[in-house]
């Protein structure tokens, strides 16, 4: 099963590699990983998406908690939660007809065109994973030059929060 794991950790050199190293050393998989400092600059929040049986995920969480730099861990799969990912797509629009069609698709998906050149449009899109996948599929007839995805971030609904 797919799990979104939120990790609050010390914002220190090496902390990220301890988390990443744990996954490679123990043979756990990382589907995506995203990390940035929080409102408290001494803490970073990392969101990691992994897959595994309940036993494996339980072990992953225990092992993460064992890392000295890790302050708290939350398996969002256990809570009602919201998940979002951000994507940039650069599309080739060298035919005139393409400009209009790409703009229309972007609007349908509530995307923003954030850069335009003679031959390219760059679209910014936010949503859950399946929406981003659907947009990439919808662009099928156009030539995609680049796709950049942030990896998922998640937050629990309501009062549940991950705080130090």
């Amino acid at each position, binding site marked *: 099963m797919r799990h979104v794991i939120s990790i609050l950790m010390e914002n220190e050199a090496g902390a990220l590699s301890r988390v990443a190293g744990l996954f490679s050393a123990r043979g756990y998989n990382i589907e995506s990983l995203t990390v940035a400092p929080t409102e408290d600059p001494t803490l970073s929040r990392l969101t990691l998406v992994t897959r595994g049986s309940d036993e494996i995920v339980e072990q992953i969480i*225990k092992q993460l908690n064992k890392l*000295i*730099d890790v302050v708290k861990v939350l398996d969002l799969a256990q809570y009602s939660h919201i998940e979002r990912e951000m994507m940039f797509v650069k599309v080739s629009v060298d035919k005139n007809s393409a400009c209009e069609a790409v703009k229309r698709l972007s609007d349908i998906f509530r995307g923003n065109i954030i850069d335009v050149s003679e031959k390219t449009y760059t679209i910014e899109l936010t949503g859950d994973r399946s929406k981003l996948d659907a947009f990439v599929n919808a662009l099928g007839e156009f030539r995609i030059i680049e796709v950049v995805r942030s990896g998922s971030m998640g937050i629990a609904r309501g009062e549940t929060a991950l705080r130090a």
Partner: protein
Amino acid sequence: MELTGAEIFVECLKEEGVETIFGYPGGAVLFIYDALYQQQDKVNHILVRHEQAAVHAAEGYAKATNKPGVVLVTSGPGATNAVTGIADAYMDSVPLVVFTGQVPRPLIGNDAFQEVDIVGITRPCVKHNFLVTDVKELATTIKKAFYIASTGRPGPVLIDIPKDVTTMRCEFHYPKEITMRSYNPTTKGNKRQIRRALDLMLEAKRPVLYTGGGVVLSGASHELTELTRELGFPITQTLMGLGAFPSMDKQFVGMLGMHGTYEANHSMHESDLVIAIGARFDDRVTGNIEKFCPYAKIIHIDIDPASISKNVKVDVPIVGDVKQVLTDMLEELRSRKERPDPSNLAEWWKQIDGWRNADCMKYTQDMTGPIRAQYVVEKLWEVTNGDAYVCSDVGQHQMWAAQYYKFNKPNRWINSGGLGTMGFGLPSAMGVQLAFPEETVTCITGDGSIQMCIQELATCMQYRLPVKIICLNNGYLGMVRQWQEFFYQKRYAMSYMDSLPDFVKLSEAYGHVGMRIENPGDVEGALKEALAMKDRLVFMDFITQQENNVYPMVPAGAGHNEMILV
């Protein structure tokens, strides 16, 4: 007053009460060595001959005393040579603080002379590590390192100190206490879980206690012994747990696992309640996990939550310090009236005694034939009254030592369990001898293992460490050969040692006493003679039977009830 980083280093060791450290100097740590030189009456530095040995010596010191061992090595090769020892300490949960020198900060990342990213290299095999980038953080970092290494599940902590940090000055202040928001190990077990565990224990028909190194590390030997006697249950111990419960006690059914006793492994297999205490269900213990304890509920007491239900699903987990949990458990037990049903237990003991009758450790020593390794260990046990410190290397001799030396006290059996590091024995014995100068410290080794850290004979001479080396010399890498005999149709690939040195002459060249013993009749006399030389290192080279196997054995992939007896 302002101190340099190097001076702060020494002050911190004094604050931590560190008396002995093990190390080897080099460019990046010269300022530290200079500061140590000026306070050599305060901190005793032992100069080893290879950094790996410094770490093993510190491990021996730590395993015998339950205090953190301290290591100081230089950058680059000094640090990488220490990695095997660090990984060893990590696997066996040995509290260590390892200091490595690093190139000056402006050179970090420049592929400077003797530069390695030791923090990166050791990340997967330390409990935690630090790179100190500011002298103002040095004292706090050292405080944290000792705290992390010695609390919770102990382990090695590494501190990498760039050379320029050792010359910078700042005000010295050593924190008395330290709190870390991200590190608060649980020590007290959950009361409700302890009661649940006791409920199961009082109802069990075929209970068995399975205890490991955690009991030794936690200093819970007394509590374990009390609890075991109070309950009347059979107890088996892992390789790392030996000595926590007296081996001569009739409730002890021997070590379990791959080379455990027939009765211990069968007790596990037939048990309806396994009480695991400070043990981690290692693959050498469980055998085939699919066939492990098929009828048992499992209670697991461990300080490391990640050890619980890692390999085997546990019914009653209790996270906490073993000593604390056992104290609470004893108190709870003593407050209750009921005790395990004596008739159930009698029935269970009858079954166990049946397995005992297989006499799985039996061997014969033909007094006209070659010396059998088992015989040497058994004689050593006799002549030392089971009270010596026994440090071991890795291989057949290690198993024989575990099987035939009956430990009655904890912290006396010092070996490399998890990582299985050949070369561990001699340096770890140095560490133990330094911690206990008056005690008998022995090193049971083989002709293969001893050569992996043989250079430490020089260290033993320099510090007059009267370790007694018992080399069970069979001319083979015995355990490798045994597996080749069993599983590779006797194709002895690279397991025979041609051109062994003359260990007697070699020991003499280092300034020690060497003995060669070739006849079974001479074994006891030689041991007594060597042990009588209180102030000398004696290297006893026992020429033993070449193709001798460790029995009994649970072959890889088999269950506990599928042992090979002979």
